[in-house]
């Protein structure tokens, strides 16, 4: 089972007199769970480790083989040691665990039927596991009042079992301040000091962290469905460039919720609130469900104010074919929020010379630079796991908590590495959470934040530096020069902020040089190429000076890097081409041009265009200008591949069948190609064919086809079912419309099936539609999956990295090689908001509400300050 590790790395422990080999650096609870024992626990969490608070995971420990009495210990607080003898099944240990559950259940309300956690409740599972059935206490139950905690999280305090996981996550991991524990003895209360929305952008994780129903998903509550009734598929978050792995669940044709899908190298156990609650745009009123066309006018223009009419899938394809055949020139505009496949097939449809990436001009330039830096090296892009393991981090010009929240969380976790270092020196085990925190005494690994505006990671930064993008670039160049004197120089003009850049650069350079795994984080946030060059130069200088520096660039959208790798011309060229009369027809795929360029330019572009064909999910200003609108499937209704900022290609899978004419962008473009005779009619193009073709034309993107197992993948001849074995209502859900049940849909594109039937065991990580194990119905069933137990170390993580640096960079990037526009930055750098800056999530009501609040709060706050002064 553990062939990868040599026997010397392992220790032997005896559980119920049977020998087992386990890894030495863990606690007994972890070891037992890894070995598949059903040992109940509450306060332990794989990311938050042990505190020994709940007393649930008791086992009996024996001195030696002659010892028959033994003693009860908490397995989560006991380190594994060679030759250790313990019993999980011991009668006394079992009754101890049963009575602990009985105490915890004393005041637990009679709520399960109306509790959103019911059916995926860790407390339910553990209660069943220990065999506690009847309540013996006859006295009244304690009750608590609930709080209003904002639009994301619902609070039902009666259900609390005081495991302290929520505050340990919220304060200890996420760095939040407004959730705490109040009151004393058996009245302890977990909540805020007063009603109000939770301020941390990771508050949604409380839903998964809480072992019972105190914190539940409020967006799910509005269209509540039990876990077993959701049709789920593995997905990838589309609300920023980090590419967190998710599980999306559907019922009755609408998307119901997003859960975290564990990926060791990306999001591990947590998601941000934008990713968790942004999904509701899929159910939005603004969704385009049918292909529509404006009535044809004699002038060929697009008459305004006229009702568009539904024309149906085939008629739309025919009409577009006709338009394309008679067009003088066609422009195809792709999108950084559309999948690689959609962009690629649009490029094939219009031809590479007519394909435009659809990034704004500034972004286009920056992304091209980033691709060049990442490909040439020498620094490698870190995964989030690498960032979590970093011992020094420099953030150069990127407001990561707002543009890449999970990356910011990884940075927050990385500063704790100092504490782990201190604890290791004191020979404390890393899993002993309180001991590590106490011994560390608040020590932090160095973090430097240089951004135009204050960020939410300033509180853990050693130094926070505020300057305009040019000032940040100056600091970056100075740091590179401090590390390695051959780095290019940049005249240090007075930046007017009164900050001593040379001294700060010296300090940062010293810390970075001293670190073993320094990470530089930059990105497109400043919209300034000099900042990117500065970050690249620092990483190069560090690589030359010794430590293996890693360089992470934050990109704004889920497939921005994919767009950059596919290439394509700039939007400006598209506008010029239209104005010069070289083209008269434009096809836009999942892109709102008004977000990419100035209103006047885009208006002029559309006025000049004879035919505008737009493919998108939601009504937006660009869709309003279209003659023909094609409904595109969202991430939940289609499968495809996205490239994250780390250059990791990851596959998202269709969760449910879309209604109406909705289909994936790549399917629309394939239909069009077929109708235009570019593809033999009759043959079928499948997702794997598209990725294979993509790999042939773009060798760099060839590994993307192995981001997930292909459609032909089977386990013991079976597909992976999207529905749980408890899925209900199969013969009644459509009976209202027609009593004859339809045949279950086939899925020829993926190895997943729209069925309850299929492989019951754990699928490969990239195809995991849910976590479940017998007796473990909650999200804690993750601990029973092969990824966690380490059984399948060779089965591969989901996704595949596309770029490994070649080390062919000719040298440092000289400031003079960058266009002058980045020196005369007169416009203030943009300010990002986690709720509000992203297009799709803003169509989710809960996110929109938080965005509105964020706009209100500063106004109130400034008003409040004024009255104080």
């Amino acid at each position, binding site marked *: 089972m553990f062939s990868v590790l040599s026997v010397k790395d392992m220790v032997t422990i005896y559980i119920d007199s049977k020998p087992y080999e386990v890894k030495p650096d863990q606690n007994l609870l972890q070891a037992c769970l890894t070995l598949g024992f059903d040992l109940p626990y509450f306060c332990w969490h794989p990311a938050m480790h042990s505190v020994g608070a709940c007393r649930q995971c008791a086992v009996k420990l024996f001195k030696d083989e002659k010892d028959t009495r033994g003693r009860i210990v908490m397995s989560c607080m006991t380190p594994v040691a060679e030759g250790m003898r313990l019993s999980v099944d011991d009668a006394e240990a079992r009754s101890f665990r049963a009575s602990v559950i009985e105490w915890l259940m004393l005041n637990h309300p009679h709520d399960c039927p109306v509790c959103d956690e019911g*059916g995926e409740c860790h407390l339910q599972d553990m209660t069943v596991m220990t065999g506690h059935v009847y309540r013996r206490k006859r006295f*009244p139950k*304690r*009750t608590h*009042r609930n709080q209003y905690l904002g639009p994301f999280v619902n609070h039902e305090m009666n*259900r609390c079992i005081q495991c302290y996981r929520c505050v340990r996550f919220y304060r200890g991991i996420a760095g939040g301040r407004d959730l705490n524990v109040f009151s004393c003895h058996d009245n302890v209360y977990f909540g805020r000091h007063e009603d109000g929305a939770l301020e941390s952008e990771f508050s949604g994780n409380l839903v998964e962290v809480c072992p019972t129903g105190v914190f539940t998903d409020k967006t799910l509550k509005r269209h509540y469905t039990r876990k077993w009734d959701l049709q789920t598929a593995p997905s990838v978050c589309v609300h920023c460039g980090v590419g967190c792995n998710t599980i999306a669940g559907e019922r009755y044709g609408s998307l119901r919720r997003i859960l975290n899908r564990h990926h060791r190298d990306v999001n591990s156990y947590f998601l941000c609130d934008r990713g968790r609650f942004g999904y509701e745009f899929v159910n939005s009123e603004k969704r385009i469900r049918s292909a529509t066309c404006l009535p044809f006018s004699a002038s060929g223009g697009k008459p305004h104010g006229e009702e568009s009419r539904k024309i149906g899938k085939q008629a739309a394809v025919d009409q577009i074919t006709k338009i394309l055949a008679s067009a003088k020139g066609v422009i195809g505009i792709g999108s950084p929020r559309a999948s690689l496949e959609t962009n690629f097939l649009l490029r094939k449809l219009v031809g590479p010379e007519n394909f435009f990436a659809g990034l704004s001009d500034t972004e286009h330039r920056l992304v091209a630079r980033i691709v060049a830096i990442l490909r040439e090296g020498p620094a490698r892009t870190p995964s989030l796991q690498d960032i979590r393991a970093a011992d020094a981090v420099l953030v150069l010009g990127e407001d990561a908590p707002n543009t890449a929240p999970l990356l910011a969380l990884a940075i927050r976790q990385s500063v704790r590495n100092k504490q782990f270092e201190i604890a290791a020196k004191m020979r404390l085990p890393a899993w002993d959470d309180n001991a590590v925190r106490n011994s560390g005494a608040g020590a932090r690994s160095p973090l430097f934040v240089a951004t135009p505006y204050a960020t939410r990671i300033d509180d853990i930064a050693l130094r926070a530096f505020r300057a305009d993008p040019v000032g940040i670039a100056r600091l970056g160049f100075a740091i590179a020069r401090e590390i390695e004197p051959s780095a290019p120089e940049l005249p240090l003009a007075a930046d007017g902020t009164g900050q001593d850049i040379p001294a700060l650069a010296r300090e940062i350079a010293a810390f970075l040089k001293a670190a073993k795994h320094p990470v530089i984080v930059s990105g497109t946030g400043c919209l300034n190429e000099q900042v990117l060059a500065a970050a690249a130069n620092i990483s190069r200088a560090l690589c030359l000076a010794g430590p293996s520096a890693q360089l992470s660039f934050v990109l704004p959208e889920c497939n921005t890097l994919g767009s950059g790798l596919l290439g394509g011309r700039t939007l400006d060229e598209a506008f010029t081409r239209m104005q010069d009369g070289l083209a008269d027809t434009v096809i836009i795929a999942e892109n709102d041009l008004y977000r990419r360029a100035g209103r006047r330019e885009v208006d002029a572009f559309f006025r000049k265009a004879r035919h505008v064909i737009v493919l998108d999910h939601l009504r937006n200003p660009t869709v309003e200008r279209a003659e023909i609108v094609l409904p595109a499937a969202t991430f939940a209704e289609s499968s495809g591949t996205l490239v994250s900022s780390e250059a990791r290609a990851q596959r998202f899978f269709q969760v449910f069948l879309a209604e109406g004419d909705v289909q994936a962008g790549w399917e629309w473009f394939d239909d069009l190609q077929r109708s235009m005779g570019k593809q033999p009619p009759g043959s079928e193009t499948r997702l794997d064919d598209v990725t294979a073709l993509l790999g042939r034309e773009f060798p760099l993107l060839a590994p993307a086809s192995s981001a997930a197992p292909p459609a032909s993948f089977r386990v013991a001849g079976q597909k992976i079912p999207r529905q749980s074995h408890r899925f209900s*209502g199969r013969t*009644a859900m459509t009976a209202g419309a027609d009593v004859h049940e339809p045949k279950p849909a086939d899925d020829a594109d993926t190895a997943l099936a729209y069925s309850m039937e299929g492989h019951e065991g754990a699928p490969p990580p990239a195809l995991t539609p849910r976590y479940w194990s017998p007796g473990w119905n909650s999200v804690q069933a993750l601990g029973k999956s092969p990824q966690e137990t380490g059984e399948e170390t060779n089965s591969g993580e989901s996704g595949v990295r596309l770029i490994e640096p070649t080390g062919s960079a000719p040298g440092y990037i000289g400031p003079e090689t960058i266009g002058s526009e980045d020196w005369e930055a007169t416009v203030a750098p943009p300010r990002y908001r986690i709720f509000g800056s992203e297009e799709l999530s803003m169509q989710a009501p809960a996110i929109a509400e938080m965005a509105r609040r964020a706009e209100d709060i500063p106004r109130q706050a400034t008003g409040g300050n004024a009255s104080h002064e």
Partner: protein
Amino acid sequence: MLSILKSLWTVLVTMFRKRVTIQYPEERPYLPPRWRGRIILSRDPDGKERCVACHLCSAACPVDCIALQAAEDETGRRYPAFFRINFSRCIFCGYCEEACPTYAIQLTPDFEMGEYLRKNLVYEKENLLISGQGKYHGYSFYRVAGLAVGGKDKGEAQNEEKPVDVKSLLP
């Protein structure tokens, strides 16, 4: 020959036995209250819907013929937005009734559900919901549950203390 006589004798003897055949539909058989026939949704003693849309009946249903959607009114009381039973699939096993934590779903001693069209066997909530309590009287789930719903605040359910004053440090 002998076998024919034997048969005649059996017929003759049976003629004087007590009849078990009932002249249905003129004559109605007695069906005990716990007979498993047509499924209904009942109301609690206050006349409110008992069903809290917990989805346990639909999960228990071996033929998956129950579909429902949970909704919540403005007071936090949960109820089914729709509740559909496809009786053309139902096998009257009674598992739904066993699973129901609120006595809402009950099987009744009525079996006369014959239809010419299969689609008429699809019962929606308005066809299922009766105005009484059915077989089990006096039980109201929300009087026991810890949840605050309209007309019942925290601490007002059976066997509950008044809500804790978090700001007090007294034991």
